[in-house]
């Protein structure tokens, strides 16, 4: 089973992740304490105890470093049938319409596709993926081919929402970035919170499927912007400015009033 599918299952089943974390910490702490006791004994048995404690502590720490992947997970309600949602998603060429970091996805064969993501400064990351699992109107899983630059592994699940409200889709994508500049570029694309990015992607998907277009204000007219806002926009055109000018404006007005 792929990593993304496992995570999907784990989230569905509940507590395993928390238990893993708990094991890690308790092993590190208990192991460390046992090692200290052993060292304080200054005898042969003490050395043995210290070694055992050290091993336990090491196992705990090792368990922690195993999960290096970046996980993006989210779900959304679509006002359409699972068939329609499945139809749309199963054409991977559609994904760049709402996943902003993707430049294109092209089919190479029935099961293989080439994905191109755009990173900072136009840096492109290219990988080929294959369909790992596909059940019509229910689930699609895909993963990068073994010799790809990065490891990507994704799953999307479609299910009927209660009360005929449409389809709830749940998406999990796992990335394992390599060391070096490609890994850095990938981390930059996904941002501090990969789940947040996935939420925005799915919100655009929802608008596209339901309203037929993605709402936007990019390119609309406006009056003169302040220097601060213009600079912020230059750094990241996608990010709305949170109104820093407003706060100072309010503070100035308050000072005047008082």
């Amino acid at each position, binding site marked *: 089973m792929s990593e993304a599918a496992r995570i999907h299952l784990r989230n569905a089943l509940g507590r395993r992740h928390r238990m893993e974390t708990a094991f890690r910490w308790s092993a590190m702490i208990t192991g460390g304490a046992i090692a200290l006791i052993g060292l304080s004994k200054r005898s042969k048995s003490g050395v043995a105890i210290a070694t055992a404690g050290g091993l336990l502590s090491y196992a705990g720490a090792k368990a922690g470093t195993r999960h290096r992947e970046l996980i993006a997970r989210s779900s959304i309600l679509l*006002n359409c049938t699972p068939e329609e949602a499945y139809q749309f998603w199963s054409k991977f060429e559609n994904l760049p319409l709402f996943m902003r970091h993707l430049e294109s996805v092209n089919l190479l064969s029935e099961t293989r596709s080439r994905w191109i993501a755009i990173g900072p400064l136009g840096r492109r990351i290219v990988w080929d993926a294959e369909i790992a699992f596909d059940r019509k109107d229910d689930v699609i899983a895909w993963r990068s081919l073994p010799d790809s630059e990065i490891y990507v592994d994704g799953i999307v699940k479609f299910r009927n929402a209660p009360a005929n409200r449409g389809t709830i889709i749940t998406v999990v994508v796992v990335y394992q970035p390599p060391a070096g500049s490609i890994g850095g570029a990938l981390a930059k694309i996904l941002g501090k919170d990969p789940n947040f990015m996935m939420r925005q992607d799915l919100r655009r998907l929802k608008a596209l499927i339901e309203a037929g277009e993605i709402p936007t*204000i990019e390119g609309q007219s*406006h*009056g*003169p912007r*302040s220097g601060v806002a213009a600079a912020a926009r230059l750094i990241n055109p996608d990010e709305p400015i949170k109104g820093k000018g*407003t706060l100072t404006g309010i503070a100035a*007005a308050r000072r005047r009033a008082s």
Partner: protein
Amino acid sequence: MKAVCWMGTEKMSVETVPDPTILNPRDAIVRISSTCICGSDLHLYDGYMPTMEPGDIMGHEFMGEVVEIGAGIDREKLKVGDRVVVPFTIACGRCFFCQQQLWSCCDNSNPNYWMAEELMGYSPSGLFGYTHMMGGYAGGQAQYARVPFADVGPLKVPAGIPDDKVVFLSDIFPTGYMGAENCNIRPGDTVTIWGCGPVGQFAIRSAFMLGAERVIAIDRFEYRLQLAQQAGAEIINYEEVDDVVQLLKDMTGNIGPDSCMDAVGMEAHYSGPIWVIDRGKQALRMQSDRPNVLRQCIMACRKGGTVSVPGVYGGFIDKMPMGQYMNKALTMKTGQTHMMRYMKPLLERVERGEIDPSFVISHRVPIDKAPEMYKVFRDKQDHCTKVVLDPWANGARAAA
């Protein structure tokens, strides 16, 4: 084109900006014939709403003529040349909420959904000219505006009826009406309405339309109370009264009004120590709103009654009388107006002559005078109740 731009707290300016263009298939461009300043614009003017940016185009009450439509619009629904009133809420018409007629809760019209999501858990619909948190859409205090999802929102109006009678279908008339509908009025009920601004005025008239026997209106400006009285309301000037809640009890045989409406919102004025505390907290950003009208509504409302809140609130409030609200078995109904539910039925009422919404207009000025009118409206100078802007008037001539 000319547009009224927010350039900072208490800084409005008429700027020349590029004309709007179609950005999405379901967009239309409207050449604006009449546009207004809304009471809720004053919260932006005063700088209490977060996520404004200098340069944002203001305004969400406007009407005009369709001059361009996008490729995604069905010509049966809207075409170039149609005369339309544009609602202030933007709705896609196809999501779960639109299909439930909860138009102001549309899921697909706010491009900055995540910003409102952070503050409220979920985002309401996008709004024209009302912060980036609510979409950042350029507003309608301008000569032209881009209208997204134009096959859903704009209401076609016939040529014979003047702008003054229909422009308020863009916000305040439906907002007052929904405020009254949210009062859950049964024939013979007594409704008390805090705030006799434009929304309050329409709420008073709507409450009578919906069968209320008595409407009690509260404000502190005599000229606004007079307008309320003309509609048949009993009036209270709260600055001349020690205890509004006690007076309402006295007026209703100690049972209290069946419904209480807060048509004031986040910038209420009151007095005493609680005013000092609320005002100070708001200044220090410890709470975003001054909620004393809401508190009074809850205290005054009869047991089992309804509190309706069309007044705009921004975020968090303190000293909410929750125990009173719970123990008295009250219901509260709120929301930005679900515009598309009300525009057509209310247009029909106007056409039948049941109401002439132009009664609320106190000032008609060219758009160039908008910045000073914000101050006049905010400070209630010159008996100001409602300002209508003409985007095309020659400023010098019309001012003379």
